[in-house]
């Protein structure tokens, strides 16, 4: 039991760390490409979406890749 929980916990941690690594890239380049509303947005806004980026990064990454391909 404890082993399974440790594995799940580690996987979750890695997922979140990947999200954290994705955050600066996304804030600098991706965000204005996937959402025109982010052009000229404040740094406060960019900071407030940090927890969301760390949690939902695969959705943003997918959207970004699709838009870059176009």
């Amino acid at each position, binding site marked *: *039991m404890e082993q399974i929980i440790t594995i799940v916990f580690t996987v979750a941690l890695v997922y979140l760390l990947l999200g954290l690594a994705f955050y600066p890239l996304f804030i600098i380049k991706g965000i204005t490409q996937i959402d025109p*509303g982010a052009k000229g947005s404040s740094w406060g806004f960019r900071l407030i979406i940090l927890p969301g980026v760390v949690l939902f990064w695969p959705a943003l990454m997918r959207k970004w890749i699709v838009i870059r391909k176009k």
Partner: protein
Amino acid sequence: MSVSYTAVGWNRQKKRYDFAIAGFCSLYLLLFIGLTAVTNPDYTFETALIRSTSTLAFLLLHVILAIGPLCRLNSKFLPLLYNRRHLGVTMFFIALIHGGFSLFQFHSLGNVNPFVSLFSSNTQYHSLSQFPFQALGFFALIILLLMAASSHDFWLHNLTPEVWKTLHMLVYIAYLLIVLHVMTGVLQFETHPVFVVLLGAGAAVLVTLHLLAGSREIEKDNARFDTVEEGFHYVCETSDILPNRAKIFCIGVERIAVYRSEDRLYAIHNVCKHQGGPLGEGKIIDGCITCPWHGYQYLPNNGQSPPPFTEKVSTYDIRISGTKVWLHPTPYPEGTERPGVYIGNSI
């Protein structure tokens, strides 16, 4: 609306709202902790903090869940809806203090990772009286975290409205998990019936409100508009629609809002582009149809948000014969200019 995002869209009304939330929460916590310190001989600050934040978060969750149906039943409650997301985020942080502190208190002393300890220290999942209730609270907290993290409108646009809506419907699962968390948890330490009674009363109020609001909606949607001429359905009399207000008609599956602005009637799709608010329950402000939920605006004659905003909803054809209003339920593409119809002296 979507021009350029800001961190928090504060205005005077929202500031007052947030002020009230902060005031109420501080007062609650202070009173709770103060009163237990004075009256309970076994008082420790940690326990008082865990219990005051848990009960406050649970209370706020009841308010949050009641706001939706209350607004459907009576528009006087709309101001509560306007800034509900700040209430939600506040509730998450308070629940986080409770959950975080419990983790710290009960699981951080050994050499096992507290998250692992949370799930492995008690594995009596088959027992009701010894059920590892903290796991239930943990999953509820994860749902609240996902909702709080995605509460900015940026997420509504970028996760798509469907995904966002589904994510935020999970609040009902969170509620259920918390009810179970409290039932299986508190009842392990407390035998006083007052907890069960409060829990039951809270659930009864929420269920009743949802059922009432739901049956009201179904009644409206089932109203039939069977008199049809050349594709136009007879819906009401011109005098039924008050100045600067609308009436909502559901023909087929579409809900359409018929608005009266100055001396004309206009028809637009009832669903707001922001979070699906009922446009027909709003009113005309400065010549624009204004959503009752968070104030997105649309021009009555073309369903477009006034520049620089870019939202658009569908428009419909409408006509008047004598005093009767007729509506064509086929939508024009979003943002199509429609002249509306002159009411003249038909009222």
